[in-house]
């Protein structure tokens, strides 16, 4: 065990396997996330990226393999160390997962109340800073139901950043948003890394977003990491699976592709 080495990788994943009801979803994922980088896990629906994220944040116990966050084995280490680790990571869920009965400010305040002994006045300042950071100062006393889709994502990021984590996980940060709002969230993620030096793991299927924020991209395909590399390296890849995904074409063996080709040929002949 490498312990809590500040220069070691932020996340190490080795041979991660997980199946549901006999159906393998992750078939041996190996991945390293470096400190301070933005790693985008890219994949189509069903590629296992959501399951991978749920394992990474400890919501799902893998069947085999190992996950080390800052050198601490998420499923093998002393429970107290793992619990302490939770205060050093933040998660922004796809739908925000804000607590519906609490205002935006109270949502951001919750981790502070639970895990710090800060007096209320200090907590209030911290909450205001986080809300200003994500551009939600005006919305501090609104309920989650009164927020737009983009504001929900911003509030979720503010809550995830409440305890100044070293690791920030984002599940589909731009899903369900219009292109402009989505670009705004991308800018925000870049700024969070710039200001806090946080290591970011972003799971998405949106190519545009992935290429605009990623230092490195890991393409997940059928439960394995098919390719890892910088956006440029991935663009230059000649792996057919990578090409299919980046060119937004259905997979080669997918029926629609053949059918469409067939139809086109017949039309051209006619």
């Amino acid at each position: 065990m490498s312990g809590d080495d500040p220069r070691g990788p932020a996340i190490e994943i080795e041979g991660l396997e997980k199946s549901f009801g006999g159906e393998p979803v992750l078939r041996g994922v190996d991945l390293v996330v470096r400190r301070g980088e933005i790693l985008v896990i890219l994949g189509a629906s069903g590629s296992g990226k959501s399951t991978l994220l749920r394992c990474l944040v400890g919501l799902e116990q893998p069947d085999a393999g190992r996950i080390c966050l800052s050198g601490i084995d998420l499923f093998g280490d002393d429970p107290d160390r793992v619990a302490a680790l939770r205060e050093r990571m933040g998660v922004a869920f796809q739908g925000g997962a804000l607590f519906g009965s609490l205002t935006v400010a109270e949502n951001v305040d919750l981790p502070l109340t639970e895990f710090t002994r800060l007096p209320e006045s200090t907590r209030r300042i911290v909450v205001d800073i986080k809300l200003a950071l994500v551009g939600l100062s005006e919305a501090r006393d609104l309920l989650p139901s009164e927020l737009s889709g983009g504001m929900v994502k911003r509030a979720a990021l503010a809550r995830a950043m409440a305890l100044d984590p070293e690791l920030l996980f984002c599940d589909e940060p731009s899903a369900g948003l219009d292109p402009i709002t989505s670009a705004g969230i991308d800018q925000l993620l870049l700024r969070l890394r710039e200001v806090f030096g946080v290591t970011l793991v972003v799971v998405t299927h949106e190519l545009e977003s992935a290429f605009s924020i990623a230092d490195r991209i890991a393409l997940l395909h059928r439960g394995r990491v098919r390719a890892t590399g910088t956006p440029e390296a991935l663009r230059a890849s000649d792996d057919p699976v990578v090409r299919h995904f980046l060119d937004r074409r259905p997979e080669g063996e997918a029926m629609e592709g053949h059918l469409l080709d067939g139809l086109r040929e017949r039309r051209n002949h006619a």
Partner: protein
Amino acid sequence: MPGTANPPSSRFGAGFAARIGRGTLVLLGDAGRMAILSARVLRQVLIAPLRRRPIRWRATLAQVARAGTESLPLVALIMLLVGMILGLQSANQLDRFGVVDLVAGLVSVSVARELAPLLTAIIVAGRVGSSIAAELGTMQVDQEIDALTVMGIDPVHFLVAPRIVGLVIALPCLTVFGDAVGILGGFLVGIGVLQLGATSYLMNSLTALHLDDVWGGIAKAVAFAAIIGVVGCERGLATRGGAEQVGRSTTAAVVRSIVLVIAADLFVTGLLYAGGGA
């Protein structure tokens, strides 16, 4: 179905048996989860405070207030009506033996021992148990429960224990209130319809009703509250999928808690009153 070798009856039989088998397995699984959840709640309530993790009293009191305000008017209405009905029905029978004045004792003892605890529990299952299941189910579907877990906040400590403890405090109080209103219903029929004297009715009630009867009802209410709380929370947390599943969980929570409350009522009644002793 035509063209199949099996006669319809045996195919129906096999399918029926398979359905019973599958249903039983599902119920056993749910019972197991309820047992685990109960154990976790007990740990939060009994052991965690010793490790300087006291239960959340503010959240718990909010739940007590919610259970009270949601159910109090309905408990008042239904217990008043039931007290009156019981007065009228028993007067009808007791009149044949010329002992109409026994109505007072009959109403107060039946209300305190049986009707107030049972009916109040059923009302609370319908109003509070269902809203607990709906609330936790929505939180599960919206990943709010996941968000708590990821933050390192135990959902049992944060959400489940306050709800169950809140019910265990609120339901006995509602039951005692139901006792009073039910006895009042009988009293109104007694002096209004049966022409019994107000003072003698009250005296008869007090002579017949022992404090043990009220305590027995309270003991039942505690057990019923635990059942309603555990079932509501378990169904809520077991919600998977989308918003439409929340409705199913809510219905299942009400049906299950009512069945279990009535079964527990027989059990507790057997423990408390079997052998004809009083």
